[in-house]
């Protein structure tokens, strides 16, 4: 077990911290990036950062919250965003036209997943935090480092963009 009262996790405690929190962080990162490899890298980077700062965390029992915030921050940071965008373009090539708009069947989910990948990172992060992590608007605002109003706006614009782009795809 992790001794969360200790000042700094040792090697064994670090492995425990990893087992307890990183799988969820990888899933979160996967929903943010859409790429399993990138997700793992992102979660590992965030974990390393949080472990490094463990002794300075104001609440060491809230490691998962710090890890979540670190994952999102890393994802939305400018440098990583550019890298991910380059990687995405390299992998995916230009967007393809899809004929199916019916939801929630499998093809529809594929479309939704694909369109989700075209959203700006903060919009996507807001949607993932609200609808996957089930965070409140206030908690989402804390993670994203913005106001509740900004979270509302990000979620609304993200949802609208998803609807519009799927509709556009269906008309093609």
């Amino acid at each position: 077990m992790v001794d969360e009262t200790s000042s700094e996790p040792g090697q064994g405690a670090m492995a425990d911290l990893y087992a307890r929190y990183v799988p969820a962080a990888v899933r979160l990162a996967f929903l943010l990036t859409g790429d399993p490899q990138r997700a793992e890298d992102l979660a590992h980077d965030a974990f390393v950062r949080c472990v490094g700062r463990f002794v300075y965390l104001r609440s060491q029992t809230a490691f998962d919250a710090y890890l979540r915030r670190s994952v999102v921050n890393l994802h939305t940071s400018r440098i990583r965003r550019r890298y991910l965008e380059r990687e995405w373009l390299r992998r995916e090539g230009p967007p393809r036209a899809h004929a199916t708009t019916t939801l929630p069947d499998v093809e529809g989910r594929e479309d939704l997943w694909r369109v989700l990948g075209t959203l700006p990172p903060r919009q996507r992060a807001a949607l993932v935090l609200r609808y996957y992590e089930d965070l409140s608007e206030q908690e989402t605002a804390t993670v994203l480092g913005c106001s509740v109003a900004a979270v509302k706006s990000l979620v609304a614009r993200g949802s609208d963009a998803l609807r519009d782009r799927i509709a556009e795809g269906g008309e093609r």
Partner: protein
Amino acid sequence: MNDVEHDLRELFHDRAGSLPVSALAPETVLRRGRRRQVSVVAAGTAMVVVVVAIAAGAIAIVGSGRTSMPAAPSALPPRTATIHGIQVSAPAGWTLIDDWPLASLLPTTSQTCSFSATGIPVGPSPAGAGTSTETTGQPSATCSTETAPLPAGVPVVQLANFSFPLDGSLCHVEQLRSVDLPADGVAVYVAAFDGAMTTADVLDACPGGRSLTTFADRSVRTLYVAVSIVGPDASPGDVSTVDRLMESLGGLRIPDEQPVATSPGYVVAAGDDGTLTWRIEAGFPVRGSSSGIGATLITADENGHETVSDPVAPVEPGQEPSAQTQPLRPEPSALIWGTSSRDVTSIANVTPDGITTQATLIPWPEGLRSTTAESDQSQLDGSIWFAIVAEPGRIEVTSAPSVTGLQRGAVLHAGSDGADASWSLVYQDEQCVRLQVDTSSIGGVGDCLPPWADLESHGGRPLIGGVYGHQLAVIVIVLPADATIDSFRTDGTGPNPDCATIHVESNFAGTQFCIFPLAVGATATITLDANGDPLGSPIGIAAQPGTIELTEGGARTVGAGSPAPSP
């Protein structure tokens, strides 16, 4: 719940649930975590040191006797540098010079040729202004080549536990300045090993030479020799450092390609990220400037292929530090580096998620001064700085007060009686500092207090001023920095004088202010040493409502006092 929200929730949980994730921590991640812990703790320690240094600096500005000018940057840090394939670990403070460019700068051979050819006149030129010639036979040339005397070979790397000029050589090389080996000095001299040389020649040319080893480039076309040099009083620790380097050089194979640096340089910082090695060199790489002083970053990939940055010149006082970024692995970590002026005391990188990394400030190597014109030497008062950061971010710069930085209104010193009264010395201009006093009921500002230099030119007697209220007076005495109060007696209840010497570079540098409160109706008697009052007369001060009266001694009051407003 609307349709998109519902669909997203299902999509997210399906996708996330379908992702195979291991709960076993990869060893590499745990190692990175451990390294991160160490580096964060080190950075935290460094920050504490910086905070303490800043606090000490702040105290020194108004404190007793210690220098207050910008904290000197730390000396050269420990460096493990790969200099064109030669890995050298230099302890903190040691001199490490990359002399590879010398091979292309120093002539090791000279060639003399004579040419001959025959020609015949072919008639007037079209302009009729003379004749032209046309060669009729093959020109011949006779050349003779002489080897320049380089008994110890052209140095490529020099390491020493002492400072020496950039154009200096630890072994005898005619074109370079010979460096005397201190008794406790140790060094390693690495040079190209010319075929005409013998190992005995090399040892003879290196005073203190103790042992040597040889190695070659990868194609074994060029041989190199490394000589350990040890002074008679060298410490065992330093000797073992040299021995370790010598052992590591034996049998080394260095890259065949030419080094990229164009001028020799002091290696002031170095590191690697696992795939890329880097080093920052200080020397004279800047073309087109009078001094040529500058710093460059040289990186080498895993194959030893080197790349050199554009040189970065020193920064003038008052200017922002220059900053360059070299991406490192893992992304988005980076080396940020540059030069800063002498008034910069700390530089920090703050990442978007708030991680602060303090930069290391390194002084320009002392050895550069001996090869820099007098008029350009002030450029060497600044620093070269660098930091390894998790992610490039905002650069925060802290500067020490200076002549140009000392603004009107700057508080030079602040204190209190621990009860109701507090005071501060506020800089007005180069001729005026004012005492500002605050209590819970009243506040006031005194007349101008001059620098001690002005008082000294008018007889060198202390000046007494202050802010005088109807219940309390706060007295200030202007003294030279080396004056001390031999005795302080009062029939009141206030504390002893709060004395502060100003060290900020200004007219007030070397002026000491001693401040104490005195209740109205109370008296204080002060005896200064000879530095404070050559006449040695005790000074008696009696506080009266709205004024003070000097009851003994010869100190002047010259209008420095100012009645405080009535409560």
